[in-house]
């Protein structure tokens, strides 16, 4: 009986050491993360969340595609002002896993805003935005005046 009590005491005293070893291992994992990833992440830390975006143009439209995963449609705002398109929004910190231990937290939380100047005048009343699979696609039709036009040459 005496023996059992002493053994249990020993086991309990050991636990905090395990905890410390685990966090040491986490530290080491972090040290060996690919440098490129660490770089982009720290640069984003300085500037906040800057979703990646692409801009395309064809003869009728300018198209902007932005990566904003895990948002709700109503949390995204799109506005057009002085030939510039602004996309903004906020991802709230949902406390879905309250009391949970966090092992990795790489996803961004908070506000973002991006502005791109558009290469052509836009018919602002015809702009369409679609949000699918975490990608926001904004289609901005050019004004009639801005579209390239073919002029028929009549032969007399």
């Amino acid at each position, binding site marked *: 009986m005496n023996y059992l009590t002493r053994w249990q005491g020993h086991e309990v005293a050991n636990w905090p050491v395990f905890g410390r070893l685990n966090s040491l291992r986490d530290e080491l994992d972090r040290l060996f993360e690919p440098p490129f990833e660490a770089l982009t992440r720290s640069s984003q830390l300085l500037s906040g969340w800057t979703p990646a975006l*692409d801009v395309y143009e064809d*003869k009728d439209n300018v198209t902007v595609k932005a990566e904003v995963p895990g948002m709700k449609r109503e949390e995204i705002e799109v506005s057009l002002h002085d030939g510039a398109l602004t996309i903004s929004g906020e991802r709230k910190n949902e406390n879905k896993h309250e009391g949970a231990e966090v092992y990795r937290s790489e996803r961004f939380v908070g506000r973002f805003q991006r502005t791109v100047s558009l290469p052509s005048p836009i018919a602002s009343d015809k702009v369409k935005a679609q949000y*699918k699979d*975490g990608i926001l696609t904004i289609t901005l039709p050019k004004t009639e005046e801005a579209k390239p036009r073919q002029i028929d040459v009549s032969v007399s």
Partner: protein
Amino acid sequence: MPTTKERQTTTTANNARREEYVVPEVNIFETKDGYVLEAEMPGVNKQGLEITLEGNEITIVGHRDNDSIPGELLFRERRLADYRRVFELDPAIETSKISAKTDQGVLTLTLPKSEKVKPRKIRVDD
């Protein structure tokens, strides 16, 4: 024990053969019932996901649903390669009960712990 020690993936032969992958950003939580892993993979829908379990490693691959390119590219920041990341699982995870769902480019994996390792209160009888 953290689940989710990540395996270094850059040196595997498999990876060298294929084109470069984008490493998705993840959040990992541990609750008393198990782990939750969220991975950001914009442009990937249900059809593009490939999750494989081998031994104590789980591999997440996301193929982008690359729709038609709308014209000439003026400005690029997005990387269009597929996503891939490998995690080593905590042996406490009941692998047959892992479930996955995806919503607006975020994959959520639920990895429950097996019943025998969940913390349990033991009642003291009189």
